[in-house]
C-alpha cells in the first residue's frame, strides 16, 4: 500500500513553475530516488510534501489520509521528516537539544524515553561525542549528520533526504549510504533527492526524474538512468542525434 501519493500537484511562483501536475506514489517501505537538473523543483516538491508550501492545486495523501490542508507541524507529527540540503540546525541549541526537539515534538516521546531515543540515534549518526556542543559551531559534515539525526529522532514513517551526500568525501559518503540502508531496512519509507548518483543507486528501489516541475521519467533505477530523457539532461545529447 502507498505511504505517500501525490495527485496532480501544481505550484507556480508567477511565471516560474516548480510543480506541474506532479503525480507519483511511494509504496510502504520503498526507497524512491529523485533526480533532475538544478532548479527542476525537487526541493519545492519536498516543501509541498512537508507542508511548508501550499500547492495551487492537487493533493498530498499520506498513509491514505488527505493531508493537503494540514500545516507542517501536524504533518511532522503524522510521521513525515526531512533533512535540508543546506543544514539548518537550531544553532543556539546544543546537538542533544536539537535532537530532543524532534523526539519530543514530532515523535511525541517524553522524558527518559525521548532521551534514550536521542542517545541511540546520536550513536548511530556518530555525533555522540559532540552531543553537548552548540549546533551553530559544527563543521559541514557534522551539520549534515545533525540533519539526519534530527530527522531520525522524529521517528519518521517517511523520511525525505535532500542532497545529504553532497560535499562529502568518498569515505564519508560510503558510511552515510550504510546508515541510510540501515534506516531503510528498519522499514522506513524514503524519498531521496541526490546528485551523487552512485550513492543514490546503492539504496533506492525506484527512480523518478523531474524537470521544470514535471515528472519526465519513472521506473527501475538502472533503466531510468539509461533512458534517453536522462541522458539528454545529464549528458546534453540532442533528441534527434
Amino acid at each position, binding site marked *: 500500500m502507498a505511504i505517500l501519493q501525490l495527485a496532480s500537484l501544481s505550484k507556480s511562483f508567477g511565471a516560474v513553475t516548480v510543480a506541474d501536475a506532479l503525480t507519483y506514489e511511494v509504496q510502504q517501505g520503498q526507497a524512491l530516488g529523485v533526480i533532475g537538473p538544478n532548479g527542476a523543483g525537487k526541493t519545492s516538491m519536498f516543501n509541498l510534501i512537508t507542508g511548508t508550501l501550499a500547492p495551487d492545486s492537487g493533493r498530498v495523501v499520506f498513509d491514505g489520509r488527505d493531508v493537503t490542508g494540514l500545516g507542517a507541524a501536524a504533518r511532522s507529527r503524522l510521521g513525515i521528516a526531512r533533512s535540508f540540503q543546506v543544514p539548518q540546525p537550531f544553532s543556539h*541549541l546544543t546537538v542533544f537539544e536539537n535532537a530532543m526537539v524532534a523526539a519530543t515534538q514530532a515523535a511525541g516521546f517524553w522524558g527518559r524515553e525521548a532521551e534514550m531515543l536521542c542517545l541511540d540515534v546520536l550513536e548511530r549518526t556518530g555525533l555522540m561525542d559532540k552531543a553537548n556542543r552548540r549546533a551553530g559551531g559544527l563543521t559541514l559534515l557534522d551539520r549534515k549528520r545533525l540533519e539526519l539525526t534530527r530527522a531520525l529522532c522524529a521517528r519518521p514513517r517517511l523520511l525525505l533526504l535532500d542532497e545529504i551526500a553532497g560535499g562529502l568525501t568518498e569515505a564519508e559518503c560510503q558510511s552515510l549510504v550504510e546508515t541510510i540502508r540501515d534506516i531503510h531496512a528498519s522499514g522506513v519509507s524514503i524519498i531521496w533527492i541526490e546528485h551523487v548518483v552512485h550513492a543514490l543507486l546503492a539504496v533506492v528501489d525506484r527512480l523518478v526524474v523531474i524537470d521544470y516541475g514535471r515528472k519526465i521519467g519513472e521506473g527501475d533505477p538502472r533503466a531510468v538512468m539509461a533512458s534517453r530523457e536522462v541522458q539528454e539532461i545529464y549528458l546534453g545529447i540532442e533528441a534527434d542525434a
Partner: protein
Amino acid sequence: MDWLNAIVQGTLLGGLYALFAAGLSLIFGVMRLVNIAHGDLIVLAAYLGLSTSIALGMHPLLVLVAVVPAMAGMGYVLQRGVLNRTLGDDILPPLLVTFGLSVIVQNALLEIYTADPRKMDAGGLETASVDLGGLTLGVLPVLTFAVAVGVIAGLQWVFYRTALGRAFRAVSDNQDIAQIMGLNKAHVFGLAMALSLAVVAVAGIFLGIRTSFDPSIGGGRLIFGFEAVIIGGLGNLWGTLAGGVILGVAQTVGAAIDPGWQLLAGHLVFLLILAIRPNGLFPRMDG
C-alpha cells in the same frame, strides 16, 4: 551613610524594575515582539488585584493566586486571537497593534476606575521596616527584590531546563524548522505570552502595594522596563535584573543629589550605557 542608603534602596527598587522588564524581555526573545501595551497591562494587573482584594477581602499578596492565572490566560488568548496575526516579516504591525491595545486598556481602566489614584492596602506591610545598624530597610522592597530574583531564576530554569524552554528557544532560533519538527508556533507563542503576563501580574501587584497608581502610569512603567532590558542586554535574564538594579540605583542616587533629578538621572545613565555599549552590558553570550 546617605550614599550607602541611596544605593541599597536603589538596588531594591531595581527588583521592581526587573519585574517590569522580565516579561518584556521574554516575549522579545521568543518572538521578536515589542509589546507597547506592556506597561498598561501591568497597571491592569494592579487594578485586577485591587478589585479582587476588595471583593474578597483578601490580602493583596494572596490575590496573586487569582490574578497570575487570570493574566496568563488573558495572555494566551490575546496572543492567539490577536497578536499572532500581526507577526511576520514586517515589524510595524505588532508595534501598531500593541500601541492600539495600550490605548484601549488605558481608556477602559479610566472608564471603570476613573482617574483617581488608588492604592492597595497591604495591612502595614508597605510601611514595615527593619533597622540594620543605621540602615533602614523596608520589608516590602526587600520582599519585592527577593521575588524578582525568584522570578528571574524561575524563568531561567524554564528556558534552559524544560521542554517548554527548549520549544521557546527552538522557535526563537528558526520558526520554519521548528514547525517541521512538529512545534505549533501559534501555541508556543501563546504560552510565551501567557508566561510574560503571569510575570506582569506579579509586577502589577507589587507596584500597586508600593505606590498609588492611576490608569495613566503604564507608559512610564513600560519605559523603565525597556531601559532595564536594554541596559542588561537583550536576551539575558540575569542581565535584565542587573539592568533594573542599575536603573534603580541611578534614580535613587540622582534623587539624593536633588529630589528633582530622580527620573532624569535614570534616563541619563540609560543613554550613557546605550552610547557606550549599544548591545547592553551583558548581551547574550551565544548570540
